[in-house]
């Protein structure tokens, strides 16, 4: 039992270790001092309470929400590579609603902003879902392509309909005070962390304790068997999972607007939608694990900013570590499968 629980954690730690080793090699090969750079990264993420609470955890919030969204789709065997686009769709809707709710009570305003964000995420992913159900288009490519459309939509919004009243910078006016999330005093940590953790727990219960969770898993593991012997309407289950996945990613955009930036601008996300894939895979699509892996990648993103400030290494370099972690997790799964196959075929030594 302990071995079974420990296995995934050790694998995850090994994957993260591999990620840092490859990042260090990559930095050294590009002509940076890896010790200086990684030191700055560590300080940026964990160097002080402010670094941890106001940088690491603040970045963990969208990563947990988007990671949950990605995991939800992946569980059903659907690869939503478009969380970035759904995040932006949610952010646009949240900003638009948030500007117009100044007269509302705060709870209602925040609820409206988040609902709009989640709905926008659903609308954004409904195109790939429709293409998949109606025409059999792989959701991988359609969700991926829509990321670029979403970025262009943000660019249009902040230079057109949503641009600030002064019309100086390509950004929106800030959302109403009523739509902003409460902050933990003395920090930038906002109430979104509660939402992220609560949703993770809810999803964990849904995944492991309900018929829906079982059907989703069955559809993901073997669609053919689920359909034929399980009588599960696979396409409907998977389409539903994709729509909910879009809702979570869209909500992530709304929470970022209402908790962190209050305004919409281009490059709002440093690639959260892609990092979320690493978050979900490192946690093996387990929602409770995503709380941990989301925090870890939040630290990586926060540390990346520190690395850029202190060591002059572009923050984007940490994507090398993220990519390595994804590949290491994939490799570990393949190795585990092979080991399992060997232990079945080999005669039992006892």
């Amino acid at each position: 039992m302990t071995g079974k629980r420990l296995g995934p954690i050790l694998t995850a730690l090994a994957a993260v270790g591999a990620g840092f080793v490859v990042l260090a090699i990559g930095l050294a090969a590009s002509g940076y001092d890896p010790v200086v750079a990684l030191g700055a990264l560590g300080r940026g993420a964990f160097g002080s309470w402010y670094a941890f609470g106001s940088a690491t955890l603040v970045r963990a919030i969208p990563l947990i929400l988007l990671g949950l969204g990605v995991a939800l789709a992946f569980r059903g065997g659907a690869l939503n590579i478009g969380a970035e686009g759904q995040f932006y769709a949610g952010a646009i809707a949240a900003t638009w609603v948030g500007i117009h709710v100044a007269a509302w009570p705060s709870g209602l305003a925040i609820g409206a902003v988040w609902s709009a964000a989640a709905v926008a995420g659903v609308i954004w992913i409904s195109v790939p879902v429709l293409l998949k159900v109606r025409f059999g288009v792989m959701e991988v490519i359609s969700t991926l392509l829509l990321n670029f459309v979403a970025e262009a939509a943000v660019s249009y919004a902040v230079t057109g309909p949503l641009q600030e009243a002064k019309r100086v910078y390509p950004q929106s006016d800030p959302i109403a005070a009523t739509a902003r999330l409460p902050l933990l005093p003395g920090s930038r940590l906002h109430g979104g962390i509660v939402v992220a953790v609560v949703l993770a727990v809810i999803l964990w219960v849904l995944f492991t304790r309900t018929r829906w969770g079982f059907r989703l898993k069955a559809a993901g593991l073997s669609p053919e068997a689920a359909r034929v012997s399980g009588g599960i309407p696979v396409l409907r289950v998977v389409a539903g999972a994709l729509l909910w996945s879009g809702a979570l990613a869209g909500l992530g955009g709304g929470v970022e607007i209402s908790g962190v930036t209050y305004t919409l601008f281009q490059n709002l996300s440093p690639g959260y939608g892609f990092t979320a894939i690493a978050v979900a895979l490192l946690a093996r699509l387990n929602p409770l694990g995503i709380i941990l892996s989301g925090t870890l990648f939040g630290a990586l993103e926060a540390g990346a900013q520190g690395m850029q400030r202190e060591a002059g290494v572009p923050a984007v370099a940490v994507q090398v570590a993220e990519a390595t972690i994804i590949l290491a997790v994939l490799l570990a799964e393949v190795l585990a499968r092979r080991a399992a196959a060997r232990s079945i075929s080999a005669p039992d030594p006892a």
Partner: protein
Amino acid sequence: MTGEAAVLAGFLAAAIRISTPLLLAATGEMLNERAGVINLGIEGAMLAGALASAVGAAAGGPWAGTLGAVAAGLIVAGIFATVAIGARCDQIISGTAITLGSVGLTGAIYRRAFGSGGPGLSLPTFPSVPIPGLSKLPVLGPALFDQPVLTYVAWILVPVAWWFLFRTWWGLALRATGESADAARASGVPVRRVQMLATVTGGAMAGLAGATLVLAQVGTFAEKMTAGRGFIAIAIVVLGRWRPAGVLLAALLFGSASALQFAFQAMGLTVPYQLFLVMPYGLALLALAGGVGRAKAPAGLGKPA
């Protein structure tokens, strides 16, 4: 030339220039998809090729840049092939990770090689090479026959790919691998080796596509400059129904859609520029919706062999 003819010639020339990197990347991706391997890492290979071409060209001229780009594409696709074919990991997720890592590494190297003041970077690029006689044809001449040499290379590779796929034993082995790896293996095809070779060839062509972007189109490197062109190339393969001539036509369609921007500007029409920005992606989605239903993908696409 009259005004309309000049606009048309300019439009065609731009369409062909813009479609060249797409054509190269898509022809390469078509090869590995025909072998049953879908490589989302070609976006990363193209980006690595673009940066390598900039570094190489700054050091030793455009041909050195081209060579560096091909090598970079080979390496990136080689890493993908090791993970996805060698270790049989999920191709989609491996490819996504490879692209993610390429964005990170190129960003770091670029800042180190050229500093943060990137736009000041000026590179030796490929000039247009007019083909004697043909380039004097009205309208079509300057569009088709007054292009940088890499454009001609891209066009020549189309019949070469056709000849290879449909007229050689290795082409047959490659297609058999993509349709049914087991059947191909049973008839003596070294399935994994075929997939590996097809994938690194595809990567080399994606690298070359990156070089085209930098050395024959934009003239400089910028972070994330491929902007999803590798993914669009994958949509082009679908629209072109995994056939060389189809891929050529599909690439031209995408090039034309993007080139409309210049035609509109020349005609003095004002439309939000974001509309042109999204045109290729919207077109790709339409292409997937319209093309997938009837076209047949290689039966073994994406499945580990």
